[in-house]
C-alpha cells in the first residue's frame, strides 16, 4: 500500500454457497486504486465486478483478504460507517422522498446541522443542474434526471470514494454520451476517487484513467486504456477489448523485445514480445485496422495470402473477411475512399499486409498477479 493509494484490495476472495455449490465470485483479487483516479472494473456479466464493488461498499464481506481505505482496514466495517458512497445501477432513489430529501439523506443520517445540510443540498443541486426540480418526487422526473439525483445524493456527504455500478446502462445512447462527459466533469471538480463498473468497453476506454479487466472472478490485466488496447496481456483481454485477429504460430527466436514467429498460415512475422517471452507455440494479435488488403499478384514479401470470403460495407469503412491458408479467418478493416478505387471481388485470391510493429505476441491465458 502506497501513500497515494485510496483503496487497496489485498488478495480478496468472495465465495458464495457452500459444499459442492461453492462459487468464487471474486477470486484472489489484488489491486491498488490511486487517489483521485477514475478507475474502471470492466468485464462480461458474471465476471465478479459488481461483487467486488459491493465488497468495497460494504454490502458483502470478503471471505478472505482485506480491503484498505486510506491505509485503514475496512473489510468488516458495515456500509453505514464507510466514507464510501454508491450510485446504484437502478439509482435506488427513495420513492417516498423528494429530490432534495434524497440528496440530503446522507448528511441527515450523519446528524449534520440543518443549515449545513440545506447549504450542501443546494450546492449539489447546482452541481448536477437540478435546482428547478428540487421539490419533485423522484418518480416524476426522467431517467437522466434520476441519474443526476443519484449522483448528487452519493456526492453530497463528500465521500472519499464514489462507486458507480453500471450507472449509465439504463440510459439511451445520446443521454449516455452526455452523462459520460458529465461524470468526467464531476470527477475533476470534486477530486474524489471514482470506481466505475461497466461491461461496455467503449465506455471504459473513453472515461477511465486505468482499467481492470475481469473474468471469472479474477483480474486479468490492470492498465491505462491504451495499454489494455495495444498490449493486452492475453487472448481473453484481446478478444474482449476491440476486435482482434488471432494467428497461431511458433516463436523461433526472441531478441530485443521482438519475436520472430513462424505462422501456421504460412510465412513468418515479426511481433512485439512482452517481457519474458520464450520460444515455442504462441498466438499473435493483429487488430483489423492495422492491416490492409492488397492484390495477390505482386504482394510484398511476408504478406499473408488467402481468399476473400466476404466484404461487409459499414459506411465509414469496409470489413474484409479473408480465409487464410490454414483456415483461420482474418478480418481487415479498411477506411472507405472516394469512389473509383479498385474493389476486390469475393472469391478472389488476396494478400493481407500487416503494418510494421502491429503484430503482438500474446501471453498465456493466465490471470496476472493472481494465484489460480
Amino acid at each position, binding site marked *: 500500500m502506497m501513500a497515494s493509494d485510496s483503496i487497496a484490495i489485498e488478495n480478496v476472495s468472495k465465495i458464495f454457497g457452500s459444499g459442492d455449490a461453492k462459487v468464487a465470485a471474486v477470486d484472489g483479487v489484488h489491486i491498488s486504486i490511486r487517489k483521485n483516479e477514475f478507475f474502471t472494473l470492466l468485464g462480461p456479466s458474471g465476471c465478479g465486478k459488481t461483487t467486488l464493488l459491493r465488497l468495497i461498499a460494504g454490502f458483502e464481506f470478503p471471505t478472505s483478504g482485506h480491503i484498505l481505505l486510506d491505509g485503514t482496514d475496512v473489510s468488516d466495517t*458495515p*456500509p453505514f460507517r464507510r466514507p464510501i458512497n*454508491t450510485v446504484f*445501477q*437502478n439509482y*435506488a432513489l427513495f420513492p417516498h422522498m423528494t429530490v432534495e430529501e434524497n440528496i440530503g*439523506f446522507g448528511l441527515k443520517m450523519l446528524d449534520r446541522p440543518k443549515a449545513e445540510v440545506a447549504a450542501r443540498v443546494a450546492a449539489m443541486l447546482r452541481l448536477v443542474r437540478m435546482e428547478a426540480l428540487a421539490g419533485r418526487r423522484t418518480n416524476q422526473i426522467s431517467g437522466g434526471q434520476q441519474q443526476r439525483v443519484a449522483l448528487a445524493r452519493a456526492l453530497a456527504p463528500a465521500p472519499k470514494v464514489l462507486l458507480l455500478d453500471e450507472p449509465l446502462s439504463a440510459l439511451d445512447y445520446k443521454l449516455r454520451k452526455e452523462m459520460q462527459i458529465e461524470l468526467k466533469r464531476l470527477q475533476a471538480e470534486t477530486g474524489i476517487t471514482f470506481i466505475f463498473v461497466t461491461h461496455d468497453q467503449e465506455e471504459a476506454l473513453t472515461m477511465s484513467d486505468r482499467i481492470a479487466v475481469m473474468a471469472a472472478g479474477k483480474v486479468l490485466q490492470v492498465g491505462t486504456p491504451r495499454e489494455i488496447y495495444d498490449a493486452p496481456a492475453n487472448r481473453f483481454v484481446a478478444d474482449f477489448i476491440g476486435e482482434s485477429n488471432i494467428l497461431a504460430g511458433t516463436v523461433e527466436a526472441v531478441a530485443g523485445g521482438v519475436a520472430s514467429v513462424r505462422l501456421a498460415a504460412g510465412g513468418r512475422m515479426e511481433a512485439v514480445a512482452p517481457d519474458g517471452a520464450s520460444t515455442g507455440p504462441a498466438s499473435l494479435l493483429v487488430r483489423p485496422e492495422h492491416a490492409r488488403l492488397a492484390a495477390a499478384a505482386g504482394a510484398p514479401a511476408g504478406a499473408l495470402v488467402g481468399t476473400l470470403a466476404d466484404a461487409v460495407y459499414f459506411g465509414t469503412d469496409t470489413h474484409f473477411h479473408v480465409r487464410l491458408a490454414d483456415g483461420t479467418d482474418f478480418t481487415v478493416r479498411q477506411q472507405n475512399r472516394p469512389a473509383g478505387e479498385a474493389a476486390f471481388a469475393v472469391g478472389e485470391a488476396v494478400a493481407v499486409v500487416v503494418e510494421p510493429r502491429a503484430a503482438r505476441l500474446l501471453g498465456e491465458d493466465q490471470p496476472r498477479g493472481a494465484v489460480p
Partner: protein
Amino acid sequence: MARPFDVRRQRGFTLIAAFCFALLYLPIAVLVVYAFNAGPSLSRWEGVSLRWFVAAANNAQVIEASIRSLQIAVSAAVVATAAATLAALATTRTPPYRGLTTTYAAINLPLMVPEIVTAVALLIVFARIKMATGYTGLGYLIAAHTAFCIPFAYLPIRARLEGMDLNLERAAADLYATPLRTFRHVTLPLLWPGILAGFMLAFVISLDDVVITEFVKSGGQDTLPTYMLGQLRRAITPEMNAISTVFLALSIVVVTVFFLVSRKRD
C-alpha cells in the same frame, strides 16, 4: 354483416359474465331494496320508508352487538397486524435459515383449516380455560380473532416487502443510516401501504366472522353476525335488511379504501 374478427372474443362469454354479475348482485340488491320497505314483509312492497333503520338503531341488542363487533375487530386487527408485520420482516428477503419454513407454514396454516374445525378446537380449549380460571370476558374472542386474522394481515405486508427494492435499504446504509434508522426512514414508510392494507383485511375478516365467534362466545357475547344468525331462525322483518344494508355499506367503504391503497404503487 359479420363484425370484424376480434382475437379476444369467445362466443357466449359476455353473456355468462353478465349472468355472473347478476347472480352476485341480485340477492344483495333485493336485500337493500326491502330494507326501505314501509311494510313488514320481505316480499310485498308497500312504499319507501326508513322505519326499519330507525327500529334497528333503537334496538339495544343490535347496538350492543355492533359495538362488541367493532371492539373485537379493532383489537384483533391491531394485534394481528403488528404481529404479522414483524413476521413478514422475519420471513422475507432472506436466504433460508432453520425455522423459516416452519414459521411460514405456521402462519399460513389457519388458511387451510376449515373454519368449523378451528371453531371446535377453540371451543374445546377455551371451555377448559374458562373452567380453570373463571374468566369469561371478551379476551377469548379477541385471541381467536387475532389468530385467524394474522395470515390475512400477513399477505399484503409480505407482498409489499417482497416487491420492495433491497437496493433502497442498501442505499440508506450506504448513506450512513444505521439499521434502525434505515428501518424508520426507508423500510417503514415504504411498507406503510402494505400495513394499512393488512390492517383493513384483518378488520373486515374479523368483522365478518360468524362460525368461530358462534362457538367461542360466552352467553351474552353476541357480535352483530352471530346476533343476525340467531334472528334468522325467527320470523324475519326488514329490520334485518336494514342492519345488513348498514353492514354492507361499511364493507364497501373499507373495500374501496383497501382497493385504492393496494393499487397505489410507488
